[in-house]
């Protein structure tokens, strides 16, 4: 049982519980290695990385070590990594930073299934004199590289297509898209929040890439934008000129160290953890599709290993999440009832999932801590709770 934090009072949620957490695309638990790496930077090496004294220099050194480690794993140079407050900021920096370099106006291409950090930024730019092309996806959620080619215009500034989708897991042909952009001399940005540390990334055709630590068993509120050398962005935050003038603000050293350690861990375990996740995903797909009135949303195989998205006929997703929660299982849904504006997930809508099925969607996302016992437990509980809800639904399966 977790007790809400009371400011001014030390209160202990015990942290450990018997919950089965299958919502790792939303966020992940911090790995103990990451916590351990971060801890000294709160109270002993707490310096400001800009300070001249040794306390500051220690912080600076740790930050640069993290930067180098990340760069090494991506096969890029450290200077190309710009630390940010997370992927929302990194995506904003890529799109707005590109737009603000112009005299106003120009064309951008993105897809219908981007995370809101890209989608709403592009939408906002469209109200500010920029033309935005939204690429459709096929029924598995894939953008076609040929559509990118067709959409390119002489005034196209940027193409932004995510590496792997956060709701359905579908991988995008970013290698091909990147090559087309390179050929046409157009910037290519990819939101790799869910793909980083899980699948390979074709860095040689990517100009900008956004990552967030908290999806990777790192801390919340920190991430980075990879910015290829030579790519010019207008900064969004002006101030002390941190991050080579690309992002001012005293650096979040514990966070940056945590991001570095989370990266090290993810890449060290990548093959092993991804293989396990893929096995869980296959097991889930087989298990869920055995039930009547179900469907898989997204691509059966060309997918991130940790995300599986299903729909259940005749039931609504928010109540399904609450039923699972009764059994201490945490997952998520793209149903309209669960969203603040009561609209169904734009991703499921873009796939052409019928609305009735979009209402009954369930996203299961695994993490490095997920066990096969947890997957089995979910597959035991799911048919029971689905039936409970179908029993009180006016709609009948297949009807």
């Amino acid at each position, binding site marked *: 049982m977790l007790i809400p934090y009371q400011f001014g009072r030390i209160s202990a949620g015990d942290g450990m519980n018997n919950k089965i957490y299958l919502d790792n695309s939303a966020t992940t638990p911090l790995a103990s290695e990451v916590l351990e790496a971060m801890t000294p930077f709160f109270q002993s090496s707490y310096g400001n990385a800009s300070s001249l004294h040794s306390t500051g220099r220690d912080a600076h050194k740790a930050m640069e070590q993290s930067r180098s480690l990340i760069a090494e794993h991506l096969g890029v140079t450290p200077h190309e990594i710009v630390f940010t407050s997370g992927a929302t900021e990194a995506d904003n920096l890529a799109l707005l930073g590109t737009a603000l370099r112009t005299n106003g106006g120009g064309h951008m291409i993105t897809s219908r299934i981007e995370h809101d950090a890209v989608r709403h930024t592009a939408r906002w730019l469209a109200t500010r004199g920029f033309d935005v092309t939204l690429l459709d996806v096929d029924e598995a959620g894939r953008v076609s590289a040929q559509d990118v080619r067709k959409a390119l215009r002489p005034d196209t500034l940027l193409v932004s297509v995510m590496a792997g989708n956060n709701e359905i897991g579908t991988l995008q042909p970013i290698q091909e898209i990147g090559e087309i952009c390179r050929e046409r001399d157009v910037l290519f940005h990819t939101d790799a929040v869910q793909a980083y540390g899980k699948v390979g990334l074709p860095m040689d055709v990517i100009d900008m890439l956004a990552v967030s630590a908290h999806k990777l068993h790192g801390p919340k509120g920190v991430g980075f934008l990879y910015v290829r050398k030579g790519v010019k962005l207008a900064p969004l935050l002006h101030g002390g000129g941190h991050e080579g003038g690309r992002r001012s603000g005293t650096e979040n050293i514990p966070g940056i160290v945590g991001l570095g350690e989370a990266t090290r861990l993810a890449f060290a375990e990548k093959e092993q953890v991804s293989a396990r996740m893929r096995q869980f995903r296959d097991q889930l797909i087989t298990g869920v599709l055995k039930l009547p009135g179900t469907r898989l949303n997204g691509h059966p195989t060309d997918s991130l290993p940790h995300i599986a998205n299903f729909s259940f006929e*005749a*039931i*609504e997703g*928010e*109540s399904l999440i*609450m039923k699972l929660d*009764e059994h201490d299982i945490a997952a998520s849904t793209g*149903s*309209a*009832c*669960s969203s*603040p504006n*009561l609209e*169904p997930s734009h991703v499921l*809508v873009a796939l*052409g*999932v*019928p*609305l*009735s099925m979009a*209402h009954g969607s369930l996203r299961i996302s695994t993490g490095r801590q997920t066990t096969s016992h947890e997957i089995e437990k979910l597959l035991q509980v799911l048919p029971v709770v689905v039936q409970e809800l179908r*029993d*009180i*639904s*006016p*709609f009948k399966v297949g009807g």
Partner: protein
Amino acid sequence: MYTDKVIDHFREPHNRGKMEDYSAIGKVGNIVCGDVMWLYIKVEQDESGRDIIVDISWETFGCTAAIATSSMVSDLAKGKTVEEAIAVTNQDVASELGGLPPVKMHCSALAADALNEAIHNYFIQEGREIPAALQERHAHIAKEMAQLEERYAAFTRKSGEKPRGCE
């Protein structure tokens, strides 16, 4: 975000399921918009000739709040005279549940509407004169449904899906 009372009703909903020998049924909502409730009432006259809702049940496709409000509205109407039941509002339903998040208030409206529609249908079936308040609310519900359908029309066009729920 939900009160304990909402969660209790969601976990153990009262009067759930279909009824075979109902007197009238109220169908509101639309699967395309995401919430559908069918409410069954069984009405009998007592010794003094008053119409009493002797039994009530429901089937709901919707969120936690929709299921909890279905349960609550059935509690509130059961055993009441039809006139008393007409007076049940969505505010009553919500406050009996200890409140609902603002974004979920429309789910309580769905429950109160279903009750209204069931009674409206009962009056029509019996060839009774329909009280003005009931008629007014019936018209209002129809208008809201049309608005909802309009709101979701773009989605519906895209998927070619037919609205199901309120006939």
